[in-house]
Protein backbone atom coordinates (compact mmCIF):
# COMPACT_ATOMS: atom_id res chain seq x y z
CA UNK A 1 0.00 0.00 0.00
CA UNK A 2 1.22 3.48 -0.82
CA UNK A 3 2.50 5.28 2.25
CA UNK A 4 0.54 8.52 1.94
CA UNK A 5 2.38 10.22 4.79
CA UNK A 6 5.76 9.54 3.16
CA UNK A 7 4.52 10.84 -0.20
CA UNK A 8 2.98 13.94 1.37
CA UNK A 9 6.10 14.73 3.38
CA UNK A 10 8.32 14.18 0.35
CA UNK A 11 6.08 16.50 -1.66
CA UNK A 12 6.44 19.34 0.83
CA UNK A 13 9.73 18.33 2.43
CA UNK A 14 11.13 21.84 2.92
CA UNK A 15 8.00 23.13 4.58
CA UNK A 16 7.75 20.05 6.77
CA UNK A 17 11.38 20.28 7.88
CA UNK A 18 11.15 23.99 8.63
CA UNK A 19 7.99 23.36 10.66
CA UNK A 20 9.70 20.53 12.54
CA UNK A 21 12.72 22.73 13.19
CA UNK A 22 10.47 25.51 14.49
CA UNK A 23 8.79 23.16 16.95
CA UNK A 24 12.22 21.67 17.64
CA UNK A 25 13.56 25.04 18.74
CA UNK A 26 10.72 25.26 21.22
CA UNK A 27 11.54 21.78 22.48
CA UNK A 28 15.20 22.79 22.57
CA UNK A 29 14.27 25.61 24.93
CA UNK A 30 12.41 23.07 27.09
CA UNK A 31 15.60 20.97 27.24
CA UNK A 32 17.64 24.06 28.07
CA UNK A 33 15.23 24.93 30.88
CA UNK A 34 15.66 21.44 32.30
CA UNK A 35 19.42 21.85 31.84
CA UNK A 36 19.36 25.17 33.71
CA UNK A 37 17.80 23.42 36.69
CA UNK A 38 20.29 20.56 36.52
CA UNK A 39 23.04 23.16 36.25
CA UNK A 40 21.79 24.91 39.37
CA UNK A 41 21.94 21.66 41.32
CA UNK A 42 25.45 20.91 40.05
CA UNK A 43 26.61 24.47 40.77
CA UNK A 44 25.14 24.35 44.24
CA UNK A 45 27.10 21.28 45.11
CA UNK A 46 30.44 22.27 43.56
CA UNK A 47 31.74 24.34 46.45
CA UNK A 48 30.52 21.96 49.15
CA UNK A 49 31.90 19.05 47.17
CA UNK A 50 35.28 20.69 46.64
CA UNK A 51 35.65 21.68 50.28
CA UNK A 52 34.55 18.16 51.18
CA UNK A 53 34.25 18.87 54.92
CA UNK A 54 32.38 16.43 57.15
CA UNK A 55 31.04 19.16 59.40
CA UNK A 56 30.06 22.80 59.02
CA UNK A 57 30.00 24.79 62.23
CA UNK A 58 28.14 28.06 61.81
CA UNK A 59 26.54 30.83 63.84
CA UNK A 60 23.94 29.48 66.25
CA UNK A 61 20.39 29.29 64.87
CA UNK A 62 21.43 30.02 61.32
CA UNK A 63 21.51 27.74 58.30
CA UNK A 64 25.08 28.72 57.49
CA UNK A 65 26.80 31.04 55.02
CA UNK A 66 25.06 29.64 51.92
CA UNK A 67 21.63 30.48 53.26
CA UNK A 68 22.09 33.50 55.52
CA UNK A 69 24.65 35.62 57.35
CA UNK A 70 26.84 33.61 59.67
CA UNK A 71 29.67 35.03 61.77
CA UNK A 72 31.73 33.15 64.27
CA UNK A 73 35.15 33.67 65.77
CA UNK A 74 38.12 32.25 63.92
CA UNK A 75 39.63 30.78 67.07
CA UNK A 76 36.66 28.45 67.37
CA UNK A 77 38.59 26.23 64.99
CA UNK A 78 40.99 25.48 67.80
CA UNK A 79 38.17 24.37 70.12
CA UNK A 80 36.68 22.26 67.36
CA UNK A 81 40.00 20.66 66.50
CA UNK A 82 40.24 19.12 69.96
CA UNK A 83 36.76 17.65 69.94
CA UNK A 84 36.96 13.89 70.05
CA UNK A 85 36.74 12.52 66.53
CA UNK A 86 37.73 15.70 64.69
CA UNK A 87 40.75 15.23 62.46
CA UNK A 88 41.17 18.73 61.05
CA UNK A 89 39.30 22.00 61.42
CA UNK A 90 39.77 25.26 59.55
CA UNK A 91 38.14 28.65 59.29
CA UNK A 92 36.59 29.75 56.03
CA UNK A 93 34.96 32.89 54.68
CA UNK A 94 32.66 33.60 51.76
CA UNK A 95 32.12 37.04 50.36
CA UNK A 96 30.70 38.44 47.16
CA UNK A 97 33.08 40.98 45.67
CA UNK A 98 33.53 42.78 42.35
CA UNK A 99 36.75 42.14 40.44
CA UNK A 100 37.71 45.23 38.44
CA UNK A 101 37.96 44.31 34.77
CA UNK A 102 37.78 47.03 32.15
CA UNK A 103 34.58 49.03 32.42
CA UNK A 104 32.51 46.11 33.65
CA UNK A 105 33.50 44.69 37.06
CA UNK A 106 32.97 40.95 37.46
CA UNK A 107 30.89 39.74 40.34
CA UNK A 108 32.55 36.78 42.03
CA UNK A 109 32.41 34.95 45.31
CA UNK A 110 35.70 35.09 47.19
CA UNK A 111 36.50 32.06 49.31
CA UNK A 112 38.96 32.87 52.07
CA UNK A 113 41.00 29.98 53.48
CA UNK A 114 44.26 29.40 55.25
CA UNK A 115 46.84 28.47 52.59
CA UNK A 116 48.83 26.66 55.24
CA UNK A 117 45.84 24.98 56.80
CA UNK A 118 44.89 21.34 56.63
CA UNK A 119 41.79 21.73 54.48
CA UNK A 120 42.21 23.12 50.97
CA UNK A 121 38.93 24.15 49.29
CA UNK A 122 40.51 24.19 45.85
CA UNK A 123 39.81 20.98 43.99
CA UNK A 124 43.08 20.03 42.32
CA UNK A 125 41.18 18.58 39.38
CA UNK A 126 39.74 22.00 38.61
CA UNK A 127 43.10 23.77 38.93
CA UNK A 128 44.16 23.98 35.30
CA UNK A 129 47.06 26.44 35.62
CA UNK A 130 49.40 27.66 38.34
CA UNK A 131 49.08 26.58 41.94
CA UNK A 132 46.90 27.08 45.01
CA UNK A 133 47.78 30.00 47.30
CA UNK A 134 51.31 29.78 48.66
CA UNK A 135 51.42 32.96 50.71
CA UNK A 136 49.29 34.58 53.38
CA UNK A 137 48.78 37.76 51.38
CA UNK A 138 48.12 39.26 47.99
CA UNK A 139 47.66 36.12 46.00
CA UNK A 140 44.48 35.09 44.25
CA UNK A 141 43.32 32.00 42.40
CA UNK A 142 40.64 32.88 39.87
CA UNK A 143 38.17 31.01 37.74
CA UNK A 144 39.11 30.84 34.05
CA UNK A 145 35.77 32.36 33.12
CA UNK A 146 36.76 35.65 34.78
CA UNK A 147 39.11 36.22 31.86
CA UNK A 148 42.17 36.85 34.02
CA UNK A 149 45.41 35.09 33.23
CA UNK A 150 48.25 33.80 35.33
CA UNK A 151 50.33 36.61 36.90
CA UNK A 152 47.73 39.28 36.12
CA UNK A 153 47.42 41.84 38.86
CA UNK A 154 44.05 42.65 40.40
CA UNK A 155 43.40 45.56 42.70
CA UNK A 156 41.05 44.74 45.56
CA UNK A 157 40.34 47.46 48.12
CA UNK A 158 43.75 48.93 49.00
CA UNK A 159 45.86 45.99 47.84
CA UNK A 160 47.09 44.45 44.60
CA UNK A 161 46.80 40.70 44.16
CA UNK A 162 48.68 38.46 41.78
CA UNK A 163 46.88 35.67 39.98
CA UNK A 164 48.76 32.50 40.95
CA UNK A 165 46.28 29.88 39.85
CA UNK A 166 43.43 29.38 37.40
CA UNK A 167 40.53 27.02 37.99
CA UNK A 168 37.70 26.02 35.67
CA UNK A 169 34.00 25.45 36.25
CA UNK A 170 34.15 26.69 39.81
CA UNK A 171 31.01 28.57 40.80
CA UNK A 172 29.08 29.32 43.95
CA UNK A 173 25.59 28.06 44.68
CA UNK A 174 24.32 31.32 43.22
CA UNK A 175 26.24 30.74 40.01
CA UNK A 176 28.88 33.39 40.72
CA UNK A 177 32.43 32.53 39.67
CA UNK A 178 34.71 31.55 42.53
CA UNK A 179 38.02 33.15 43.43
CA UNK A 180 40.22 32.08 46.29
CA UNK A 181 42.20 34.39 48.56
CA UNK A 182 43.94 33.86 51.86
CA UNK A 183 41.89 33.94 55.03
CA UNK A 184 43.77 36.97 56.29
CA UNK A 185 43.12 38.93 53.11
CA UNK A 186 39.50 37.84 53.15
CA UNK A 187 39.05 38.94 56.75
CA UNK A 188 40.65 42.26 55.96
CA UNK A 189 38.39 42.80 52.98
CA UNK A 190 35.29 41.67 54.79
CA UNK A 191 35.72 42.96 58.29
CA UNK A 192 38.25 45.80 58.20
CA UNK A 193 36.49 49.11 58.02
CA UNK A 194 37.90 52.20 56.33
CA UNK A 195 39.54 54.87 58.48
CA UNK A 196 36.53 57.13 58.03
CA UNK A 197 34.22 54.39 59.22
CA UNK A 198 36.46 53.64 62.21
CA UNK A 199 36.46 57.33 63.17
CA UNK A 200 32.73 57.55 62.75
CA UNK A 201 32.22 54.44 64.90
CA UNK A 202 34.51 55.82 67.59
CA UNK A 203 32.49 59.04 67.66
CA UNK A 204 29.45 56.88 68.29
CA UNK A 205 31.20 55.07 71.11
CA UNK A 206 31.64 51.92 69.08
CA UNK A 207 35.07 50.47 69.38
CA UNK A 208 34.72 47.16 67.66
CA UNK A 209 37.16 46.54 64.85
CA UNK A 210 37.48 42.83 65.22
CA UNK A 211 38.74 41.32 61.98
CA UNK A 212 39.15 37.81 63.30
CA UNK A 213 35.64 36.74 62.37
CA UNK A 214 34.90 34.03 59.82
CA UNK A 215 31.72 32.69 58.26
CA UNK A 216 32.13 29.05 59.17
CA UNK A 217 34.45 26.49 60.67
CA UNK A 218 34.81 23.36 58.60
CA UNK A 219 36.03 20.08 59.98
CA UNK A 220 36.95 16.63 58.80
CA UNK A 221 36.55 13.59 61.03
CA UNK A 222 38.80 10.74 61.90
CA UNK A 223 37.86 7.34 60.56
CA UNK A 224 35.39 5.38 62.64
CA UNK A 225 33.55 8.34 64.15
CA UNK A 226 29.87 8.90 63.61
CA UNK A 227 29.36 12.28 62.00
CA UNK A 228 25.99 12.86 63.68
CA UNK A 229 27.31 12.10 67.13
CA UNK A 230 30.23 14.52 66.73
CA UNK A 231 27.88 17.16 65.31
CA UNK A 232 25.49 16.77 68.26
CA UNK A 233 28.34 17.08 70.71
CA UNK A 234 29.52 20.35 69.15
CA UNK A 235 25.97 21.68 69.06
CA UNK A 236 25.51 20.91 72.74
CA UNK A 237 28.75 22.28 74.09
CA UNK A 238 29.79 25.02 71.72
CA UNK A 239 26.36 26.63 71.23
CA UNK A 240 26.71 26.65 67.48
CA UNK A 241 24.68 25.24 64.65
CA UNK A 242 26.41 22.26 63.08
CA UNK A 243 25.56 20.65 59.77
CA UNK A 244 26.90 17.57 58.11
CA UNK A 245 27.91 17.73 54.47
CA UNK A 246 24.64 16.06 53.51
CA UNK A 247 22.63 18.58 55.53
CA UNK A 248 24.47 21.47 53.89
CA UNK A 249 23.68 20.00 50.50
CA UNK A 250 20.03 19.63 51.50
CA UNK A 251 19.95 23.24 52.69
CA UNK A 252 21.21 24.29 49.28
CA UNK A 253 19.07 22.04 47.11
CA UNK A 254 15.89 22.06 49.16
CA UNK A 255 15.87 25.46 50.81
CA UNK A 256 17.63 27.59 48.24
CA UNK A 257 17.09 25.91 44.89
CA UNK A 258 13.64 24.51 45.51
CA UNK A 259 11.77 27.70 44.69
CA UNK A 260 13.91 28.28 41.64
CA UNK A 261 13.30 24.66 40.65
CA UNK A 262 9.55 25.11 41.02
CA UNK A 263 9.75 28.28 38.96
CA UNK A 264 11.72 26.52 36.24
CA UNK A 265 9.46 23.46 36.50
CA UNK A 266 6.36 25.56 36.00
CA UNK A 267 7.96 27.42 33.14
CA UNK A 268 9.00 24.11 31.56
CA UNK A 269 5.47 22.72 31.97
CA UNK A 270 4.05 25.83 30.29
CA UNK A 271 6.56 25.46 27.45
CA UNK A 272 5.58 21.81 26.99
CA UNK A 273 1.92 22.81 26.97
CA UNK A 274 2.63 25.55 24.43
CA UNK A 275 4.61 23.05 22.31
CA UNK A 276 1.68 20.62 22.43
CA UNK A 277 -0.74 23.34 21.39
CA UNK A 278 1.58 24.42 18.57
CA UNK A 279 1.98 20.83 17.34
CA UNK A 280 -1.80 20.43 17.51
CA UNK A 281 -2.32 23.68 15.59
CA UNK A 282 0.22 22.65 12.95
CA UNK A 283 -1.45 19.27 12.51
CA UNK A 284 -4.85 20.96 12.37
CA UNK A 285 -3.60 23.40 9.73
CA UNK A 286 -1.86 20.63 7.79
CA UNK A 287 -5.10 18.62 7.85
CA UNK A 288 -7.16 21.66 6.84
CA UNK A 289 -4.84 22.22 3.88
CA UNK A 290 -5.58 18.67 2.76
CA UNK A 291 -9.32 18.73 3.32
CA UNK A 292 -10.07 18.80 -0.40
CA UNK A 293 -7.83 15.79 -1.01
CA UNK A 294 -9.27 14.03 2.04
CA UNK A 295 -12.81 14.62 0.77
CA UNK A 296 -11.84 13.29 -2.66
CA UNK A 297 -10.22 10.23 -1.12
CA UNK A 298 -13.34 9.60 0.95
CA UNK A 299 -15.53 10.16 -2.09
CA UNK A 300 -13.69 7.70 -4.29
CA UNK A 301 -13.86 5.17 -1.49
CA UNK A 302 -10.54 5.26 0.34
CA UNK A 303 -11.21 3.94 3.87
CA UNK A 304 -10.81 6.30 6.85
CA UNK A 305 -8.16 4.02 8.29
CA UNK A 306 -5.74 4.81 5.44
CA UNK A 307 -6.30 8.56 5.72
CA UNK A 308 -6.08 8.51 9.53
CA UNK A 309 -2.86 6.50 9.29
CA UNK A 310 -1.43 9.26 7.11
CA UNK A 311 -2.35 11.96 9.68
CA UNK A 312 -0.96 9.99 12.64
CA UNK A 313 2.27 9.06 10.84
CA UNK A 314 2.85 12.67 9.82
CA UNK A 315 2.17 13.88 13.35
CA UNK A 316 4.54 11.36 14.89
CA UNK A 317 7.18 12.12 12.28
CA UNK A 318 6.80 15.83 13.03
CA UNK A 319 7.17 15.12 16.74
CA UNK A 320 10.25 12.92 16.27
CA UNK A 321 11.93 15.36 13.87
CA UNK A 322 11.11 18.25 16.19
CA UNK A 323 12.60 16.30 19.08
CA UNK A 324 15.79 15.55 17.14
CA UNK A 325 16.19 19.13 15.95
CA UNK A 326 15.39 20.34 19.48
CA UNK A 327 18.22 18.21 20.83
CA UNK A 328 20.63 19.45 18.18
CA UNK A 329 19.55 23.04 18.82
CA UNK A 330 19.95 22.74 22.59
CA UNK A 331 23.39 21.12 22.23
CA UNK A 332 24.49 23.89 19.89
CA UNK A 333 23.53 26.72 22.20
CA UNK A 334 23.78 25.45 25.77
CA UNK A 335 27.38 26.49 26.24
CA UNK A 336 26.51 30.05 25.29
CA UNK A 337 24.49 30.49 28.48
CA UNK A 338 26.26 32.46 31.21
CA UNK A 339 25.30 29.92 33.87
CA UNK A 340 25.89 26.20 33.77
CA UNK A 341 23.40 24.19 31.70
CA UNK A 342 23.55 20.42 32.16
CA UNK A 343 21.80 18.41 29.44
CA UNK A 344 21.04 14.93 30.68
CA UNK A 345 19.93 11.95 28.60
CA UNK A 346 17.10 10.90 30.97
CA UNK A 347 15.62 14.41 30.64
CA UNK A 348 15.76 14.09 26.85
CA UNK A 349 14.03 10.69 26.96
CA UNK A 350 11.38 12.08 29.28
CA UNK A 351 10.77 14.94 26.84
CA UNK A 352 10.66 12.43 23.98
CA UNK A 353 7.85 10.54 25.72
CA UNK A 354 6.02 13.80 26.40
CA UNK A 355 6.42 14.82 22.74
CA UNK A 356 5.12 11.44 21.58
CA UNK A 357 2.08 11.72 23.82
CA UNK A 358 1.56 15.34 22.72
CA UNK A 359 1.84 14.28 19.07
CA UNK A 360 -0.66 11.47 19.49
CA UNK A 361 -3.07 13.81 21.29
CA UNK A 362 -2.53 16.43 18.58
CA UNK A 363 -3.23 13.91 15.84
CA UNK A 364 -6.69 13.34 17.32
CA UNK A 365 -7.61 16.82 16.11
CA UNK A 366 -6.59 15.89 12.58
CA UNK A 367 -8.31 12.52 12.86
CA UNK A 368 -11.52 14.16 14.06
CA UNK A 369 -11.35 16.48 11.08
CA UNK A 370 -10.87 13.51 8.73
CA UNK A 371 -13.82 11.64 10.19
CA UNK A 372 -16.06 14.69 9.89
CA UNK A 373 -14.93 15.52 6.32
CA UNK A 374 -17.87 15.43 3.93
CA UNK A 375 -17.05 13.48 0.75
CA UNK A 376 -19.65 15.56 -1.08
CA UNK A 377 -17.50 18.63 -0.34
CA UNK A 378 -15.16 17.41 -3.07
CA UNK A 379 -17.79 18.23 -5.68
CA UNK A 380 -18.42 21.64 -7.11
CA UNK A 381 -14.98 23.21 -7.25
Amino acid at each position, binding site marked *: MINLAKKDV*EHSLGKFLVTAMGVGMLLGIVLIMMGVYRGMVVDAEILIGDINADLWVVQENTLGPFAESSRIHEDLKNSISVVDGVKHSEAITFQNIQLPKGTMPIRVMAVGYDPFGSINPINQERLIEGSPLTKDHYQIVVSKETGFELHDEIVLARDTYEVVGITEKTVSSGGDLLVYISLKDAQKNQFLYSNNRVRSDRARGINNNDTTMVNAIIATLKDGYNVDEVANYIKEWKHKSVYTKKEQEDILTKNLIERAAKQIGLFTAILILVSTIIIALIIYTMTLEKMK*EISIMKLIGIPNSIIIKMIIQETLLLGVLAFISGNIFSHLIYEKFPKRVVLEIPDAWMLFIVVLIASILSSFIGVKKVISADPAAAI*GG
Partner: protein
Amino acid sequence: MDKQSIRVENLVKSFGKGDARVDVIDGASFSVNKGELIALIAPSGAGKTTLLMMIGCVQEPTSGKIWLGDEKVYDDKWLNKDTRAIRREKIGFIFQAHYLIPFLNVIDNVTLLPQANGQKKEEAEKFAMELLEYLDISDKAHFMSSQLSGGQNQRVAIARALANKPKIILADEPTAALDNERSVSVVEMLKKIALEQDVAIIMVTHDEDMLPLCDRILKIEDKKIVSSKVMKGASMI
Protein backbone atom coordinates in the same frame (compact mmCIF):
# COMPACT_ATOMS: atom_id res chain seq x y z
CA MET B 1 -31.17 -6.14 -14.54
CA ASP B 2 -28.99 -8.07 -16.97
CA LYS B 3 -28.47 -5.14 -19.26
CA GLN B 4 -29.16 -2.47 -16.70
CA SER B 5 -26.25 -1.15 -14.72
CA ILE B 6 -28.06 1.61 -12.86
CA ARG B 7 -31.73 1.69 -11.99
CA VAL B 8 -33.46 4.41 -10.03
CA GLU B 9 -37.08 4.30 -8.97
CA ASN B 10 -39.12 7.14 -7.59
CA LEU B 11 -36.07 8.79 -6.04
CA VAL B 12 -36.81 11.77 -3.79
CA LYS B 13 -34.37 14.18 -2.22
CA SER B 14 -35.45 17.05 -0.04
CA PHE B 15 -33.59 19.34 2.30
CA GLY B 16 -35.00 20.87 5.48
CA LYS B 17 -38.25 20.12 7.28
CA GLY B 18 -41.74 21.56 7.56
CA ASP B 19 -42.18 24.93 5.91
CA ALA B 20 -38.45 25.07 5.20
CA ARG B 21 -38.54 21.80 3.24
CA VAL B 22 -37.14 22.09 -0.27
CA ASP B 23 -37.63 19.22 -2.71
CA VAL B 24 -34.73 18.99 -5.13
CA ILE B 25 -35.54 15.69 -6.80
CA ASP B 26 -39.11 14.49 -6.62
CA GLY B 27 -39.75 11.03 -8.01
CA ALA B 28 -36.92 10.50 -10.47
CA SER B 29 -37.01 7.14 -12.25
CA PHE B 30 -34.69 5.95 -14.98
CA SER B 31 -32.18 3.29 -15.84
CA VAL B 32 -28.81 3.19 -17.57
CA ASN B 33 -27.62 0.17 -19.50
CA LYS B 34 -24.16 -1.27 -19.57
CA GLY B 35 -22.05 0.36 -22.26
CA GLU B 36 -24.21 3.49 -22.37
CA LEU B 37 -22.94 7.04 -22.07
CA ILE B 38 -25.72 9.22 -20.69
CA ALA B 39 -25.72 12.99 -20.55
CA LEU B 40 -27.50 14.47 -17.57
CA ILE B 41 -28.55 18.04 -18.23
CA ALA B 42 -30.52 20.62 -16.31
CA PRO B 43 -30.31 24.28 -15.42
CA SER B 44 -27.96 25.21 -12.61
CA GLY B 45 -29.34 24.30 -9.21
CA ALA B 46 -31.82 21.81 -10.62
CA GLY B 47 -30.24 18.91 -8.75
CA LYS B 48 -27.88 17.24 -11.27
CA THR B 49 -25.01 16.85 -8.86
CA THR B 50 -27.39 15.86 -6.05
CA LEU B 51 -28.80 13.10 -8.25
CA LEU B 52 -25.30 11.98 -9.16
CA MET B 53 -24.25 11.94 -5.50
CA MET B 54 -27.27 9.86 -4.54
CA ILE B 55 -26.53 7.30 -7.26
CA GLY B 56 -22.90 7.41 -6.13
CA CYS B 57 -23.93 6.58 -2.53
CA VAL B 58 -22.45 9.87 -1.32
CA GLN B 59 -25.69 11.61 -0.35
CA GLU B 60 -28.59 9.72 1.15
CA PRO B 61 -31.88 10.13 -0.70
CA THR B 62 -35.04 10.97 1.22
CA SER B 63 -36.83 7.99 -0.30
CA GLY B 64 -36.88 5.75 -3.35
CA LYS B 65 -34.90 2.80 -4.66
CA ILE B 66 -31.46 2.46 -6.28
CA TRP B 67 -29.93 -0.58 -7.91
CA LEU B 68 -26.27 -0.67 -8.89
CA GLY B 69 -25.70 -3.68 -11.11
CA ASP B 70 -27.58 -6.54 -9.54
CA GLU B 71 -27.38 -5.12 -6.05
CA LYS B 72 -30.18 -3.09 -4.58
CA VAL B 73 -28.31 -0.56 -2.48
CA TYR B 74 -31.10 1.76 -1.38
CA ASP B 75 -34.70 1.10 -0.47
CA ASP B 76 -35.79 4.09 1.60
CA LYS B 77 -32.58 3.45 3.52
CA TRP B 78 -29.08 2.22 2.71
CA LEU B 79 -29.18 -1.55 2.57
CA ASN B 80 -25.42 -1.69 3.00
CA LYS B 81 -24.21 0.72 5.67
CA ASP B 82 -20.71 0.80 4.23
CA THR B 83 -21.52 3.06 1.31
CA ARG B 84 -17.83 3.86 0.88
CA ALA B 85 -17.14 0.20 0.15
CA ILE B 86 -19.89 0.30 -2.52
CA ARG B 87 -18.18 3.32 -4.11
CA ARG B 88 -14.79 1.68 -3.85
CA GLU B 89 -15.93 -1.53 -5.52
CA LYS B 90 -18.54 -0.44 -8.03
CA ILE B 91 -18.15 3.21 -8.98
CA GLY B 92 -15.58 5.42 -10.63
CA PHE B 93 -15.80 9.19 -10.21
CA ILE B 94 -14.67 11.93 -12.55
CA PHE B 95 -15.01 15.53 -11.49
CA GLN B 96 -15.18 18.99 -13.01
CA ALA B 97 -11.54 19.54 -12.09
CA HIS B 98 -9.20 16.56 -12.09
CA TYR B 99 -8.85 16.55 -8.27
CA LEU B 100 -5.80 14.35 -8.37
CA ILE B 101 -4.00 14.01 -5.05
CA PRO B 102 -1.25 16.64 -5.49
CA PHE B 103 1.38 14.83 -3.43
CA LEU B 104 1.06 11.62 -5.46
CA ASN B 105 2.45 11.15 -8.94
CA VAL B 106 0.31 9.88 -11.81
CA ILE B 107 0.86 6.16 -11.23
CA ASP B 108 0.27 6.49 -7.47
CA ASN B 109 -2.93 8.45 -8.07
CA VAL B 110 -4.19 5.69 -10.34
CA THR B 111 -3.14 2.79 -8.09
CA LEU B 112 -4.29 4.31 -4.78
CA LEU B 113 -7.82 2.95 -4.91
CA PRO B 114 -6.97 -0.59 -6.14
CA GLN B 115 -4.34 -0.82 -3.41
CA ALA B 116 -6.87 0.37 -0.84
CA ASN B 117 -9.07 -2.44 -2.20
CA GLY B 118 -6.36 -4.91 -1.27
CA GLN B 119 -4.75 -5.32 -4.68
CA LYS B 120 -0.98 -5.91 -4.69
CA LYS B 121 1.15 -2.96 -5.71
CA GLU B 122 2.75 -4.69 -8.72
CA GLU B 123 -0.62 -5.91 -9.98
CA ALA B 124 -2.21 -2.47 -9.51
CA GLU B 125 0.68 -0.75 -11.26
CA LYS B 126 0.57 -3.16 -14.19
CA PHE B 127 -3.10 -2.46 -14.75
CA ALA B 128 -2.58 1.27 -14.19
CA MET B 129 0.09 1.32 -16.89
CA GLU B 130 -2.30 -0.45 -19.24
CA LEU B 131 -4.93 2.21 -18.50
CA LEU B 132 -2.44 5.04 -18.99
CA GLU B 133 -1.39 3.52 -22.31
CA TYR B 134 -5.05 3.16 -23.26
CA LEU B 135 -5.50 6.84 -22.46
CA ASP B 136 -2.26 7.68 -24.25
CA ILE B 137 -0.52 9.18 -21.24
CA SER B 138 1.74 6.36 -20.07
CA ASP B 139 4.85 8.48 -20.70
CA LYS B 140 3.75 10.73 -17.84
CA ALA B 141 3.35 7.92 -15.30
CA HIS B 142 5.90 9.34 -12.91
CA PHE B 143 4.99 12.98 -13.33
CA MET B 144 3.25 15.01 -10.64
CA SER B 145 -0.12 16.45 -11.60
CA SER B 146 1.35 19.95 -11.36
CA GLN B 147 3.60 19.05 -14.30
CA LEU B 148 0.71 18.09 -16.58
CA SER B 149 -1.73 20.12 -18.67
CA GLY B 150 -5.44 20.27 -17.85
CA GLY B 151 -6.32 17.72 -20.52
CA GLN B 152 -3.57 15.35 -19.42
CA ASN B 153 -4.70 15.62 -15.81
CA GLN B 154 -8.27 14.88 -16.79
CA ARG B 155 -7.09 11.75 -18.63
CA VAL B 156 -5.24 10.67 -15.47
CA ALA B 157 -8.46 11.30 -13.52
CA ILE B 158 -10.29 9.04 -15.98
CA ALA B 159 -7.61 6.37 -15.49
CA ARG B 160 -8.09 6.69 -11.73
CA ALA B 161 -11.85 6.30 -12.15
CA LEU B 162 -11.24 3.09 -14.14
CA ALA B 163 -8.53 1.69 -11.92
CA ASN B 164 -10.85 -0.38 -9.73
CA LYS B 165 -12.58 -1.76 -12.86
CA PRO B 166 -15.95 -0.20 -12.03
CA LYS B 167 -19.10 -0.96 -13.97
CA ILE B 168 -20.41 2.54 -13.31
CA ILE B 169 -18.73 5.88 -13.89
CA LEU B 170 -20.26 9.09 -12.60
CA ALA B 171 -18.76 12.15 -14.24
CA ASP B 172 -19.65 15.57 -12.90
CA GLU B 173 -18.98 18.09 -15.68
CA PRO B 174 -15.69 16.44 -16.66
CA THR B 175 -15.15 18.87 -19.53
CA ALA B 176 -16.02 22.10 -17.72
CA ALA B 177 -12.40 23.13 -17.31
CA LEU B 178 -11.31 22.15 -20.83
CA ASP B 179 -11.42 23.86 -24.20
CA ASN B 180 -13.72 22.49 -26.88
CA GLU B 181 -11.11 20.35 -28.60
CA ARG B 182 -10.01 18.67 -25.38
CA SER B 183 -13.63 18.33 -24.22
CA VAL B 184 -14.52 16.40 -27.35
CA SER B 185 -11.45 14.24 -26.88
CA VAL B 186 -12.41 13.43 -23.26
CA VAL B 187 -16.05 12.63 -24.07
CA GLU B 188 -15.00 10.48 -27.02
CA MET B 189 -12.70 8.65 -24.66
CA LEU B 190 -15.58 8.11 -22.21
CA LYS B 191 -17.72 6.80 -25.02
CA LYS B 192 -14.96 4.41 -26.06
CA ILE B 193 -14.59 3.19 -22.46
CA ALA B 194 -18.35 2.70 -22.13
CA LEU B 195 -18.45 0.59 -25.27
CA GLU B 196 -15.25 -1.38 -24.87
CA GLN B 197 -15.45 -2.01 -21.15
CA ASP B 198 -19.20 -2.32 -20.85
CA VAL B 199 -19.37 0.51 -18.35
CA ALA B 200 -22.44 2.64 -17.70
CA ILE B 201 -21.50 6.31 -17.62
CA ILE B 202 -23.62 9.21 -16.44
CA MET B 203 -22.07 12.52 -17.37
CA VAL B 204 -23.39 15.80 -16.05
CA THR B 205 -22.76 18.51 -18.61
CA HIS B 206 -23.72 22.03 -19.57
CA ASP B 207 -21.94 21.80 -22.87
CA GLU B 208 -24.45 21.23 -25.67
CA ASP B 209 -21.63 20.40 -28.07
CA MET B 210 -21.01 17.22 -26.10
CA LEU B 211 -24.59 15.97 -26.33
CA PRO B 212 -24.33 14.44 -29.83
CA LEU B 213 -21.51 12.26 -28.56
CA CYS B 214 -23.78 10.66 -25.91
CA ASP B 215 -26.22 7.78 -26.33
CA ARG B 216 -29.05 9.37 -24.44
CA ILE B 217 -29.90 12.56 -22.64
CA LEU B 218 -31.62 12.72 -19.29
CA LYS B 219 -33.06 16.10 -18.44
CA ILE B 220 -34.18 17.22 -15.02
CA GLU B 221 -37.10 19.53 -15.19
CA ASP B 222 -39.41 20.45 -12.39
CA LYS B 223 -37.53 18.07 -10.08
CA LYS B 224 -38.20 15.04 -12.30
CA ILE B 225 -36.48 13.27 -15.14
CA VAL B 226 -38.71 14.51 -17.89
CA SER B 227 -37.04 13.40 -21.06
CA SER B 228 -34.82 10.66 -22.26
CA LYS B 229 -33.80 11.44 -25.77
CA VAL B 230 -31.87 8.94 -27.86
CA MET B 231 -29.19 10.69 -29.87
CA LYS B 232 -28.94 9.91 -33.54
CA GLY B 233 -25.72 8.37 -34.61
CA ALA B 234 -24.41 8.13 -31.10
CA SER B 235 -23.60 4.49 -31.52
CA MET B 236 -21.35 5.35 -34.47
CA ILE B 237 -18.58 6.53 -32.13
